[in-house]
């Protein structure tokens, strides 16, 4: 549990003071900003090697030599050439000139797009300190294409070493832009590497060499891809292993993982995301596409927040959790899969970082409003919505949320201006708030009608998702309480664990931290005054009954989407493997009618719909698709949102 738990218990977020970096840009000259003296403090390692020297180190590494020698059936020289070609495709070519160029362009763009870019300077100070001690791994969450641009821009502005960034290879394909990114420190990773050993070897050695030499922070998205639903994704482990390895092998004394939480009042790609979720294929990243997207520049995206979290020492994390002597009897360069112990450690570390990203995320008032709007999709009165948003703000603050709620403005104004930013999703007319339907000719089929509404619902759901992590654990305890006869903490915990396993792919839980999660949920409820805890019991309080009901309702759509109804009302469970391995006996108990074998569904890595004929479920829990039919799940359109979870009798809870 360690450090994370400690911060979990003091649930109120420590205050962070944010500074708007655009303010100075609006006053000063962009040119002189771009051309100013840029002298980041030296990193912990040797001076930066030139990109070609770096590539040479990689190609001549013992690790690569092992792998090249193991490639049978081809002449060694050929394999070496292939490796060099892969490296050429992959490698960054960081040049300060291009950083300046980019800095100039971004000053222009960002000042148009955003009202403010809010950055916590104390976090940057800690980051600067960390870069001088040990290699730093910057781990931002990924919500928009501009995430990494913003980060590099901030680093440039604050005179910090420009990070070397792991980017998806589609970006490289954009003519000109790809090259600009490369010279701004991006290196490119193919999707779906599969079992291409040589590629893995080149990539991992490249990453490890950068980490080892420590000349610049390495930046990568531990979530692996842009979250289309704005909900945190369970981490991907490939890059995580690569960056951790130099520590596990003793090649560096320590590593600092720096979680970075990026949040937008309004995400640039919001409608694109909604369409992707509805199955419209993601447009290919092209320069032409980018130019077309210029109209994006004409809109108002409000503020964005970048919160640099406390650096996490990998050495501290590893203490007592992993034996570092595991490479004592083999050459450290020998290619091989990480041990089970290392995998478990890397996974726990990655999950922790995502949790820290969540904790650092700054929420806009709209996120809270969206949560409520979604529960009243058929429209609601503005005054009621405002009242409930204020009520929700109280709960959110009790639960430790970071809110961007200006204290110097009247609350009503804060809420309405925050909502006004989302004209494309909600409208407020004659004191009533409505979800917007996409314009177009009268719908011909029901399906089309659903589609038009869906986009607004999905966008709304996405903004709700941004705030979800605040409520998840208390809500799970609340649901568990509602399903247990009596108030025994032990029973509630058991049901809580069931939900935790069920939602393992839905929300981010640090593996093995069930008790801590439960503790966090319980203490959250206590903070809100919704429960009273004695030694062995957890009882809801009469006064705050609403809170329990409300929190349960938040999870309702998620619970319901996990009950995908088949032809014969047979319950199929997504991610059943997880449930079954923990509750094998439970399963029969819970699903006495189940005759089918559990089906595990593949999740497409790109996030949009694969054309599979059978049931499949998206990351977004509000809709499910069956045999290419799309419906919005009633769970999110329930007319009576403020009531307890209505769960089928055969359900687990």
């Amino acid at each position, binding site marked *: 549990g360690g450090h994370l738990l400690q911060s979990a218990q003091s649930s109120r977020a420590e205050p962070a003071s944010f500074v708007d970096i655009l303010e100075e840009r609006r006053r000063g000259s962009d040119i002189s900003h771009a051309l100013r003296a840029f002298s980041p403090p030296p990193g912990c390692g040797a001076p930066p090697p030139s990109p070609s020297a770096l590539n040479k180190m990689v190609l001549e590494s013992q690790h690569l030599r092992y792998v090249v020698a193991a490639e049978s059936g081809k002449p060694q020289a050929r394999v070496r050439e292939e490796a060099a070609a892969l490296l050429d495709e992959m490698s960054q070519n960081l040049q300060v000139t291009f950083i300046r160029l980019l800095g100039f362009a971004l000053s222009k763009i960002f000042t148009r797009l955003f009202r403010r870019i809010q950055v916590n300077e104390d976090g940057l100070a800690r980051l600067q300190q960390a870069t001088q001690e040990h290699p730093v791994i910057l781990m931002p969450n990924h919500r928009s294409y501009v995430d990494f641009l913003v980060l590099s821009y901030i680093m440039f502005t604050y005179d910090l070493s420009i990070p070397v960034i792991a980017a998806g290879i589609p970006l490289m394909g954009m003519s000109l832009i790809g090259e600009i990114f490369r010279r701004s420190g991006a290196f490119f990773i193919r999707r779906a590497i599969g079992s291409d050993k040589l590629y893995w070897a080149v990539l991992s050695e490249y990453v490890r060499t950068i980490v080892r030499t420590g000349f610049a922070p390495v930046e990568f998205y531990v979530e692996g891809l842009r979250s289309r639903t704005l909900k945190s994704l369970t981490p991907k482990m490939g890059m995580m292993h690569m960056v951790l390895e130099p520590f596990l*092998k*003793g*090649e560096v*004394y320590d590593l600092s993982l720096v979680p970075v939480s990026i949040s937008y009042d309004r995400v640039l790609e919001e409608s694109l995301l909604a369409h992707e979720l509805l199955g419209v294929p993601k447009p290919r990243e092209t320069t032409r596409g980018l130019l077309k997207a210029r109209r994006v520049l004409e809109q108002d995206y409000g503020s964005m927040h970048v919160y640099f979290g406390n650096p996490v020492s990998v050495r501290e994390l590893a203490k007592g959790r992993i*034996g*570092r*002597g595991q490479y*004592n009897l083999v050459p*450290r360069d020998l290619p091989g899969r990480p041990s089970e112990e290392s995998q478990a450690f890397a996974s726990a570390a990655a999950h922790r970082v995502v949790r820290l990203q969540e904790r650092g995320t700054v929420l806009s008032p709209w996120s809270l409003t969206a949560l409520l709007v979604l529960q009243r999709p058929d429209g609601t009165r503005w005054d009621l919505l405002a009242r409930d948003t204020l009520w929700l703000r109280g709960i959110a603050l009790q639960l430790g949320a970071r809110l961007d709620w200006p204290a110097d403005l009247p609350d009503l104004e804060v809420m309405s201006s925050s909502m006004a930013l989302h004209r494309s999703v909600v409208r407020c007319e004659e004191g009533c708030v409505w979800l917007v339907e996409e314009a177009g000719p009268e719908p011909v089929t029901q399906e089309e009608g659903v589609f038009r509404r869906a986009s607004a619902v999905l966008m709304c759901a996405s903004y709700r998702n941004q705030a979800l992590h605040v409520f998840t654990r208390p809500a799970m305890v609340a649901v568990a309480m509602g399903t247990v006869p009596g108030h025994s903490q032990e029973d509630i915990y058991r049901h809580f664990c069931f939900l935790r396993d069920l939602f393992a792919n839905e929300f981010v839980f640090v593996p093995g931290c069930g008790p801590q999660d439960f503790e966090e949920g319980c203490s959250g409820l206590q903070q809100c005054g919704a429960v009273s805890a004695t030694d062995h019991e957890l009882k809801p309080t009469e006064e705050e009954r609403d809170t329990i009901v409300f929190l349960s309702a938040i999870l309702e759509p998620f619970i319901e989407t996990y009950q995908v109804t088949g032809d014969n009302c047979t319950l199929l469970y997504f991610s059943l493997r997880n449930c079954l391995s923990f509750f094998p006996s439970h399963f029969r108990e819970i699903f006495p009618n189940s005759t089918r074998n559990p089906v595990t569904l593949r999740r497409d890595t790109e996030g949009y719909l694969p054309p599979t004929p059978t049931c499949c479920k998206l990351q977004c829990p509000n809709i499910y698709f069956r045999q290419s039919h799309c419906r919005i799940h009633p769970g999110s359109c329930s007319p009576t949102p403020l009531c307890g979870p209505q769960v089928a009798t055969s359900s687990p809870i």
Partner: protein
Amino acid sequence: PKATLQDIMKWNGWGYSDSRFLFNKKGQGEFTGKRYRLSGMILPSLKDWFEATFGTSLQHKTPATPTLNVSAVPPPNLVEPFVEELKVAGVAASHDPEGRVFRSHGHCLHEIFALREGRIGRVPDLVVWPNCHNDVVKIVELACKYNVCLMPYGGGTSVSSALECPLEETRSVVSLDTSQMNRILWIDEKNLTVHVEAGIIGQDLERQLNESGYCTGHEPDSMEFSSLGGWVATRASGMKKNIYGNIEDLVVHIKMVTPRGVIEKSCQGPRMSTGPDIHHFIMGSEGTLGVVTEVTMKIRPLPEYQKYGSIVFPNFQQGVSCLREVARQRCAPASIRLMDNEQFQFGHALKPQVSSIFTSFLDGLKKFYITKFKGFEPHHLCVATLLFEGDREKVLQHEKQVYDIAAKFGGLAAGEDNGQRGYMLTFVIAYLRDLGMDYYVIGESFETSVPWDRVLDLCRNVKERIVRECKERGVQFPPFSTCRVTQTYDAGACVYFYFAFNYRGLADPLHVYERVEHEAREEILANGGSLSHHHGVGKLRKEWMREAVSTVGLGMLQSVKEYVDPNNIFGNRNLL
């Protein structure tokens, strides 16, 4: 017994009573006595280095208790009939408190620190001085008869708590001092071997052999005081092992007295295939199985020519790469050692006052050449010291080969003087800890061996770990944390760490010190280093033995102990 080292050595510090570092009234460093090249010299830069490195002030002193308080020594627990029979057998024995205290410790920090504060722990109840192998046979027989615990004592230079009396030992503890068994019994010039009683002290053995035109070439840093029997019992390593080998390479025959009887081989064949080598049960047994009484070892004619040398490298990494290359080409000189930057600066602090303006001008010129002209960063550069031996022509050839390799790694030859001073420092550096302890500074050295590819990582991580652990435990000023590579092998190197800190403001400095040393050892093991290269395990590192040799390995050693000494007569409880 005849005069022993006890008469001319400190009772609560390192080495000869007449030799010590001090800061004189002017605040200048000084080394007293006449025994060493540095003796009687003024060390003008020592004070500044000392104060800057440890954040100390000469105002704050922590002097040692001047004399041993005899009344604090626990009365001896004697087995009268045992003492009687010893007397009858003509073996010298004494329960004089000073002698018992002198043999109750080695030179671990905690042992010396306690003595300086006048704290006396469990000490042996009796000291016996056998004169020869047969005396030892007699003593061991009597010990078995009366169930007395025997602890062999050679030079007393242990740094593994090996000489500490186990607190849980309730029997009478007898220190078996081998110092009287110090004769060279014969020299065999046809086979180039020498047969010696195991109590002989290193420098005496070497000096006497030199008079006959020979040497063993075995020169551990402790050779002024450590004994041949001690080397065998701990698997010692000598500075010039590249030419002469470590103790296991030098030994031809060993005679040891155990409770089961005497163990030895039947011939002096240079190599045998007769099952596991029984010498390897003896070497490294750390006094748990018996007493080594006589040893036959190899000798070599004295080398015709010796030459020191030194090389400056731009940084430690380059230096290690050079040593690795030297090892790869198997052309290591008799000794090659690489100091890191901190030790290089430390070495400078011990430079005696230069006699002429010309020398200091030359020094300045050298410094200018290296740092300004060659662009070496004064806070990164490091130095290797070298010692070549052999016939003149070959030495010069060899020297060229090594300097050519060094040049490939950016190394610059830095003169014989620096090299020679480096080796001289080896012998005086141990005295320096006592000076530190006069001014709130405690420290220690420890060592390991590690594969080549992990040398750099291990050095960096262990040094850093020491710094961090000190900080975490409330040490106010960053510690002195430094290392050097002292031996090269085909597959790896021996690394030596020095670590010291200013303990002002700490409630329990010894505890802090012990925790940091413990963590440093953990770090060594996590980085693929060994539990010990030549200091041994003793009681200090016992907790890691199972991890180091596996459960089965430990069981094998235990079963040997079980057979050889079922009643634990050799009860120092080292190793196992």
